[in-house]
């Protein structure tokens, strides 16, 4: 049972539970983004995924994303749960829930959250195929991170 707003877990994620963390009498809208394990990526068949996290830092960075969202969309409330370990096809890797009095903010903040997760949260995914495996990341070095720190400008 996950009860923290921002958490890394090894257990299957309950969508209802993550949503319940942000539901409130002031909310009229809750946008939820659920990331699931897709079988085919660019024609290549994935057998399963393995997620690893630097858990303490990852939870801190998820909370930081929550703070960024509160700055940009003051009336929203955000919860994010990310699973680690071995995940099969169709399993849920991440659930983002953003509640808001009005629906526009909940969509925008939810979208912002998933984009930022892919930029600053220390979580890694290893794809396992029939003929190999690979840790996914920015293999092409299109980003240099010259300053050592990924700034918002660098990464969006």
């Amino acid at each position, binding site marked *: 049972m996950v009860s923290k707003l921002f958490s890394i877990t090894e257990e299957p994620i309950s969508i209802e539970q993550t949503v319940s963390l942000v539901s409130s009498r002031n909310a009229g809208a809750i946008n939820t983004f659920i990331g699931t394990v897709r079988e085919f990526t660019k024609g290549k068949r994935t057998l399963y995924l393995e997620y*690893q996290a*630097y858990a303490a830092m990852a939870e801190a960075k998820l909370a930081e994303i929550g703070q960024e969202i509160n700055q940009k969309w003051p009336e929203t409330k955000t919860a994010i749960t990310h699973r680690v370990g071995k995940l099969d096809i169709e399993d849920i890797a991440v659930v983002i829930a953003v509640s808001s009095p009005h629906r526009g903010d909940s969509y925008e903040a939810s979208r912002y959250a998933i984009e930022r997760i892919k930029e600053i*949260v*220390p979580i890694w995914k290893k794809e396992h195929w029939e003929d190999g495996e690979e*840790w996914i990341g920015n293999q092409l070095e299109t980003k240099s991170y010259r*300053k*050592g720190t990924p700034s918002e400008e660098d990464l969006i």
Partner: protein
Amino acid sequence: MNKILFFAALQEKAGKESIELDVSGKSVKQVKEFVAQEYGLAKINESMTAINEEFAASDDVIQENDVIAFIPPVSGG
């Protein structure tokens, strides 16, 4: 003494999750160069570095007891 953490491909390449090393007084850049050479981790240059769970700059200097982590390009979500 400092703890240095490896993740994802770096962890597999290093063959361990962490090492203990006294690198206090050195810059992030110096630690990266040392570890890259010592453990054959060329990919460390594509990684960011965290000190005590916060992203650090290349010229930040390591303090006694700091925990250092090398953060390969992330792929969560």
